[in-house]
């Protein structure tokens, strides 16, 4: 079941989707909501798609069963995608559809809202009308409104909700059939960016410095909202250069720190990334990708910065790159990023994208006791005096102490090549020893990387390979393809660098066809695979129009040649 809520920016599609989504999740459905919005604050055409299933859907795929058209443009753009017997809710005072038919449910959204107390509650009226068409009562939504607005303000909203419900109900009650419900206990309804913000906070992140840039801003907003209640400071830096350097200063002196940005901001940060590598300062950089080059498509999605994350920053230094596949995984994986950064005193880049960040899904609650929090600092007992920040050790990791941690001992970090004390050197021998010391960490990081996840048999017709946020689309595509009788396996990478190769080396020869699916134009991951393993995929399915993959498109592409 698909619901599309469309209108101009500022008309509150998001409020409707949020309210409706949460109410449906509480009722027992699996819900996904995906945002499609333009880079403007007013006007334009924006929409949110809600997909409802027995299980939580992975993508907002499929024909529209209910179109909530808040303006005429939404009607014109989307009515063609309406499923047979699909319905349209519209406000007859806003516009009148050309061809009158039974599928149209006219509800005076604004007037009913005005009658209930204020025309800005037209959103709530639309939610009520939608519930009626789905054959649902307003109970859960009333509770939600009370929780959100408090008893007093909720009163008017509840009136508006009921008015919409009644009006639509008169015209077609339960004319759309929802899938079966499933008993699954309490579920979160949570978007990717909030997931990352929450994971950072729950990993002990105490400082975020960032410069706003879509689609990463949601992470910043989440953490900023927690400053009064939790031990975290969020600073909006004057630019991304300041952002990463501030985070490094905080990390050097002992606060777990993160910065978040998108490609253009990351471009300004790369000198700082290199500084993190040289000074061996732990840092997590959340890089939420959007299509480039340059300003690109600010509010759209792409997996175009993998190569940039791999190679950004001058000089050679170890780094780890992890990615967000889906919220349930990303929550724990960002925690891993913080742990790796401190354990190996090195930058860790966490790649996500607009599709991941702006998509909300119903998922089971997280188990916070599974999160790890280890500082990996030198203790009083293990302290060798005088303290040397860059002491050469067997595994390349120097004992890390914080400025001020030990009376009489000082800590010196240096961007120049340095000796064990952190003092500038230029001699060849020390340089060689220091490069060797730092680069040893790459092998250690490699051992910490998770194997890619295999869904399906270990041999068969098609091996679908993906990384990052295409996880859900590929899961769904695999299910659909499997129904056609083909043996399809989905191999998905969350930890990207250093790349774990064993799994893929053994799987590759056991499939007739190997297809890499990526949201970019040049097949960056396939190229990485080739470089690291010598293996070449048979085909690449690439999409780079700024929109996420839908399972049905992947199926169509896969079947083109078969």
């Amino acid at each position: 079941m698909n619901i599309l809520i469309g209108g101009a920016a500022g008309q509150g599609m998001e409020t409707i989707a949020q309210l409706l989504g949460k109410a449906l999740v509480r009722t027992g459905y699996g819900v996904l909501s995906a945002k499609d919005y333009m880079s403007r604050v007013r006007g334009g055409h924006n929409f949110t798609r809600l997909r409802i299933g027995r299980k939580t859907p992975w993508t907002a795929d499929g024909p529209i069963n209910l179109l909530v058209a808040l303006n005429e443009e939404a009607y014109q753009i989307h009515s063609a995608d309406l499923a047979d017997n699909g319905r349209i809710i519209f406000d007859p005072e806003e516009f009148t559809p050309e061809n009158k038919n039974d599928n149209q449910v006219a509800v005076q959204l604004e007037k009913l809202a005005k009658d209930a107390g204020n025309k800005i509650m037209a959103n709530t009226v639309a939610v009520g009308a939608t519930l009626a068409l789905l054959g649902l009562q307003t109970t859960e939504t009333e509770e939600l409104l009370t929780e959100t607005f408090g008893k007093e303000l909720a009163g008017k909203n509840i009136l508006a909700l009921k008015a919409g419900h009644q009006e639509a109900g008169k015209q077609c009650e339960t004319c759309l059939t929802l899938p079966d419900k499933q008993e699954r206990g309490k579920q979160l309804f949570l978007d990717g960016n909030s997931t990352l913000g929450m994971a950072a906070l729950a990993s002990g992140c105490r400082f975020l410095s960032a410069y706003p840039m879509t689609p990463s801003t949601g992470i910043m907003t989440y953490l900023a909202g927690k400053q009064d209640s939790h031990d975290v400071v969020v600073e909006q830096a004057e630019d991304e250069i300041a952002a990463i350097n501030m985070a490094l200063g905080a990390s050097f002196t002992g606060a777990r720190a993160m910065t978040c940005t998108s490609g253009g901001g990351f471009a300004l940060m790369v000198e700082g990334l290199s500084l993190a590598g040289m000074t061996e300062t732990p840092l997590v950089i959340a890089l939420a990708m959007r299509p480039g080059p340059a300003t690109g498509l600010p509010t759209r999605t792409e997996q175009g910065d993998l190569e940039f994350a791999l190679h950004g920053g001058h000089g050679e230094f170890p780094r780890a790159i992890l990615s967000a596949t889906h919220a349930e995984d990303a929550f724990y994986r960002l925690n891993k990023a913080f742990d790796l950064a401190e354990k190996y005193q090195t930058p860790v880049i966490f790649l996500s994208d607009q599709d991941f960040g702006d998509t909300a899904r119903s998922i089971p609650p997280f188990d916070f006791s599974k999160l790890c929090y280890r500082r990996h600092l030198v203790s009083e007992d293990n302290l060798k005096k005088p303290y040397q920040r860059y002491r050469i050790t067997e595994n390349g990791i120097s004992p890390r102490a914080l400025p001020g941690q030990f009376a009489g001992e000082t800590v010196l970090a240096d961007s120049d090549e340095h000796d064990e004390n952190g003092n500038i050197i230029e001699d060849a021998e020390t340089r060689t020893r220091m490069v060797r010391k730092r680069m040893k960490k790459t092998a250690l990081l490699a051992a910490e990387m998770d194997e890619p996840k295999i869904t399906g048999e270990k041999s068969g017709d098609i091996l679908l390979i993906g990384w990052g946020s295409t996880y859900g689309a590929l899961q769904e595509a695999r299910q659909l393809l499997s129904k056609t009788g083909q043996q399809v396996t989905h191999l998905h990478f969350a930890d990207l660098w250093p790349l774990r190769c064993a799994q893929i080396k053994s799987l590759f020869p056991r499939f007739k066809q190997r297809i890499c699916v990526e949201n970019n134009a040049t097949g960056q991951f396939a190229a990485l695979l080739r470089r690291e393993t010598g293996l070449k995929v048979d085909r690449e399915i690439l999409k780079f129009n700024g929109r996420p993959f839908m399972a049905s498109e992947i199926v169509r592409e896969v079947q083109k040649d078969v």
Partner: protein
Amino acid sequence: MCNAKDYLINETAWCPGCGNFAIREALAAALAELELPHHQVLLCSGIGQAAKMPHYIKVNGFNGLHGRALPPAIGARVANTSLKVIVESGDGDTYGEGGNHFIHNIRRNPDIAHFVHNNQIYGLTKGQASPTSETGMKTKVQTAGNILPPFNPLSTALVMGAGFMARCFSGEKDHLKETMKQAIQFPGYALIDILQPCVSFNKLNTYGWYKERVYHPENHDPQNWQAAMELARQWGDEIPLGIFYNVPHETFESHFPTLRGEPLATRPFNPADLSSLQDEFL
């Protein structure tokens, strides 16, 4: 009792006669007289001759990137409010490459003392014009003479709302030391622009040139913004020295209730205690 000598470490890589030596000695003496323990001070710098200071003073140090001396210092203040944070760098580093940070950190007003070694030239890269070079100064790059007017750090700082700003001369070490002590103790952002002869590359602004011009204005009231602005703008035959402005206001750190009490860096933490964070999404 602390001794200034205890703060001096390593051989410096500066040219004999460079103004940086006196600045280093003044800093060591200021730290000693304020009895600041080595491990409770953090010196952040960028890149340049001046920016090598963390290698020559025994305190904690973060010798970061060219132009980026200030941002790590802000992060450090957030992470650990018990550290005394001092930023030291050249005029190119601070006013050129790092100009944006300079402007915005005056607005932020973190509790940081900022000592700029202003030699009116790029030293480390061997003598190109800096933002404070005199108009007309010839260099290997500014072959026909510098065409730009010099940047005025002190009037800029004042306009941006700095609470403490001063001009010193490395040829007057005691005055510099006393001013440094006041800047370090000032609650908020405190800027000292230090006139520092570069004997190797700046043949115009020499010790002699400065000595002929510097003077200490009498009866200046450092609470008087207008008077401070007049001194800040004075340059040429007469160059005033001293604390031109000294009026504390709310610091960056004081806006965050979270920063009261134990430093963020060492506050204990257990992820399991935060499980209720997800309730808002139920």
